[in-house]
């Protein structure tokens, strides 16, 4: 089983190993300054030094991320669906969305502090802002691209009400778009975690913890091996969540198999 998995993913494993090898060679022989680029071995050493704290840091950041993502989903999907299905809703929301969309999540930090204080909701809010728009616009695109033939077929089969058409036709056919929006949002969400944890949050009463928070702390102390370690943690968490979504995509979208050039 393990051997099978290894064989199946050999290109991906090779790609990661090659990346680490290249990093070690460049940092050790070309740069040779841990401040500019710490070596892989120094980062591994930092990992063992901090291994007791890392699970708490990840858990706190995951909670921040999930708060933001949860609200992005419950706000983004309905608004995106309404905008994609009803022309009037599109006209109503579009100017507001397009005005708010270019504002970077970082620019919301001063208001987040005023509105939510230094609570964990502030972090959730910054992540929500970053994650909302990919979900919303992808849902919108999915609904807009719902096949006319599918809608007409559903109508012929007795599905007349808008709510039913949305539920049984538009929503399932938009699902690949929504999932892809969620995948993009998770990536942006992790970027926002670093920004959101920059100012001293409550961290659920656990004190000085959180992946983003610790990254900034070690940056202040010029401990670049630890900074690189927390950057890697962010990367690995993003990768794992992406793989999880890909797995969900494969299982939830079995009907899509054979509709594209590349098998999902």
């Amino acid at each position, binding site marked *: 089983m393990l051997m099978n998995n290894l064989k199946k993913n050999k290109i991906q494993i090779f790609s990661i190993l090659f990346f680490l090898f290249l990093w070690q060679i460049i940092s050790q022989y070309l740069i040779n300054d841990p401040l500019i680029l710490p070596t892989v071995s120094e980062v591994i050493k930092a990992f063992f030094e901090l291994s007791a704290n890392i699970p708490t840091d990840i858990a706190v950041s995951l909670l921040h991320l999930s708060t933001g993502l949860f609200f992005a989903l419950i706000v983004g999907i309905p608004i995106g669906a309404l905008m994609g299905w009803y022309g009037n809703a599109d006209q109503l929301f579009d100017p507001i969305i397009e005005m708010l969309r270019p504002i970077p999540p970082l620019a919301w930090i001063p208001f987040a*502090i005023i509105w939510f*204080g230094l609570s964990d909701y502030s972090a959730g809010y910054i992540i929500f802002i970053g994650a909302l728009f990919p979900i919303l616009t992808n849902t919108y695109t999915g609904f807009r691209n719902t096949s006319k033939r599918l809608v007409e077929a559903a109508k012929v089969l007795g599905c007349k009400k808008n709510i039913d058409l949305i539920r049984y036709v538009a929503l399932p056919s938009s699902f690949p778009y929504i999932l892809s929006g969620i995948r993009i949002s998770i990536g942006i969400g992790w970027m926002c975690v670093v920004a959101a944890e920059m*100012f001293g949050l409550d961290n659920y009463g656990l*004190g000085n913890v959180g992946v983003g928070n610790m990254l900034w*702390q070690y940056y*202040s102390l*010029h401990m670049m091996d630890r900074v690189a370690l927390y950057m890697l943690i962010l990367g690995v968490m993003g990768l794992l969540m992406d793989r999880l979504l890909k797995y969900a995509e494969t299982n939830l979208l079995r009907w899509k198999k054979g509709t594209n050039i590349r098998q999902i």
Partner: protein
Amino acid sequence: MKKNKSYKYIAMTILLIVGLSGCTSQQQAEEEKLNTITIGVQPSTHQVAEMIAMDKGWWDEIFSKYGITKTKDKLFPSGPPEMHAMLGGELDIAYVGAAPAISAISKGLDAKIIAAVQISGSALVLTPELADNYTGPNDLIGKKIATFPPGSIQDSVLKHWLIQNNINPDKDLRIVAMGPGDAITAIEAEQIDGVFLPAPSPSKIELDKKGKMVELSGAMWPDHACCVIVVSGKLIREYPEIVKEILDTHIRATNYIYSDTDDAKKICAKKIKLSEEVIDYSLEHWDGAWVTDPRKIVDSVLSFAKVQYDLGYIEKMPKQEDLFDMSFYNQI
């Protein structure tokens, strides 16, 4: 066969890109160094000497004699990011707290402290209700206090003072790292209980009636060193005559603060974009003093190093000669 060739091309391209980008940025940096001097400074009354020298054109005066055509200064919210920029080769001279200089030099920064800039000059400010009932450090237990990031003077003084008063800075209260702008916003929005910041930020909060000063840093750690001038090793080794002039200019600017304080206040207010009223109030209510003699702060700086070592910020205790170059000051 074809596959092998393409792998080779990819590998060669990566190496070329890495190599060339390294060369280009290094060359650019070298070329820029010959023409430009960059000075790091923070928006604080502590470092008004640098602001005066810049405003009066004194830096240009000395550097132009050596063919340096451009002098610029960069503002940093606190010492740690300023030292990080110096570690990245962005600064030639830094007006910075002694504590961030210690941690940067301990991490391999090729630079030395050549003069003192100022001592004391920070204050603990609590929200008005807490300040009215404040009796001592024990009142801070369970509170949330914002200060500069770990490795800064303020972080070190605050934690040292708390430990001296048998308060665990990691467990008994929450210390959050912030720059001056964020910390002022946070206390004025009543999101934290207090701040420990350098002048003039405590005065700004007090004038806005959002907090009151309850402790001055000079009382928390008597006559503690604060800001210093850090000069890059390259300047010290290759251009000692310029470093000597930097020191002379710093002394001239420091004397100017005392001889024409009103003008110094105006220059500072303009530079850090605060009203003269705040600067005035700040200088009336602070406990700091502008100094230049590095010999007088050696013990205090080494104590900071000990605090940082005990807090685990640095791996080994630096010696005086690792941190200071007294040779320039000794020539005066």
